[in-house]
């Protein structure tokens, strides 16, 4: 949906001018999920309201509510994912209600944001995409990986390491990043990934003007199921990059990492990571 109808300028126009758009993540609204109890209650109410009105329901679904919060109509994602069908659906609602066009009610803002973290943390922003349209879905996916200041000290090479020398961080710190190296799939539970082989190595290249630069070399072999059931599919990837940090403070100025050959499910994919 993100790179489909939600990237259509016509859909964006309709949603911003005539609707109050909102999305809800099912995982957050289940027992133990991070959504507020009132949010969970609202989603359950909407679902039951749609059921009672004998409208289509589902976990991946569109629900349209009137200004009293009652369900007006619904659409299965298989229909909503077709831009033309979604536009017809939205226009039908607007026509039915006689909703006038207006300005967006909320200031649009970036929806993929780094998680809150202690001051001085390193937030890495990751983008994944297919290179050949095989073995994974099209489009792009993002992840955020955060290292606290204490973890950063263990991630980067120690200050006494001379240019030419190399070291590897604790495996847990390496795996936290590498488990996100996979293309666009239905399964996004990194807890299900099985890292079979991995290496993350920093080689100090230079130390000048109070800044240390290290080369990054990484390698990964990881079982990652496309769907949520075992299929034996494996990510094989090599990555290269560099990191610049202030030698005295250990504060990262630039962290950049890209795949240097990555395959999955018979296709090739790319991952790029940068500090934000």
């Amino acid at each position: 949906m993100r790179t489909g109808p939600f990237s259509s300028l016509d859909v964006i126009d309709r949603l911003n001018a005539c609707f109050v758009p909102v999305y809800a993540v099912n995982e957050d609204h289940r027992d133990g999920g991070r959504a507020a109890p009132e949010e969970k209650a609202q989603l359950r109410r909407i679902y039951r309201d749609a059921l009672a009105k004998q409208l289509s329901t589902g976990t991946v679904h569109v629900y349209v509510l009137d200004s009293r919060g009652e369900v007006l109509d619904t659409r299965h994602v298989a229909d909503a994912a077709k831009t033309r069908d979604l536009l017809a659906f939205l226009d039908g609602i607007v026509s039915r209600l006689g909703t006038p066009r207006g300005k967006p009610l909320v200031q649009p803002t970036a929806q993929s944001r780094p998680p809150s973290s202690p001051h001085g943390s390193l937030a890495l922003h990751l983008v994944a995409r297919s290179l050949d349209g095989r073995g994974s879905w099209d489009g792009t996916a993002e992840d955020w990986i955060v290292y606290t200041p204490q973890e950063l000290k263990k991630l980067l090479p120690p200050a006494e390491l001379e240019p030419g020398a190399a070291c590897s961080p604790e495996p847990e710190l390496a795996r936290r990043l590498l488990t996100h190296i996979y293309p666009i799939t239905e399964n996004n539970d990194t807890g299900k990934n099985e890292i079979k082989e991995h290496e993350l190595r920093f080689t100090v290249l230079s130390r000048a003007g109070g800044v240390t630069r290290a080369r990054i070399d990484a390698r990964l072999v990881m079982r990652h199921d496309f769907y949520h059931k075992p299929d034996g599919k494996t990510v094989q990837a090599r990555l290269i990059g560099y990191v610049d940090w202030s030698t005295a403070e250990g504060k990262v100025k630039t962290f950049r990492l890209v795949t240097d050959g990555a395959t999955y499910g018979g296709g090739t994919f790319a991952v790029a990571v940068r500090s934000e």
Partner: protein
Amino acid sequence: MKTRCSACALLVLAGWLAGAEPGVTDGNLAAVVDDRLARWWLTPDERRFDQIAWARDIREALKLSAQSQRPVFLFTMDGRVNTGRC
């Protein structure tokens, strides 16, 4: 010898097809990495999702709907549509 050269050529070709490029040295590392990052990063068209005026949550959407008389468009999903991991 010929067999070994052919095998090397195949390995280079396989690496190139998988997105790897030969000859990444310490000297050109930053240039190669920066170039790939620029090519593979999100384009403005791929960030159009951010142009939608999403309400923070269902309660805020209901409140805005009551005030404006506009209908709420609610999309529910497994995974996170805002990052494309869904």
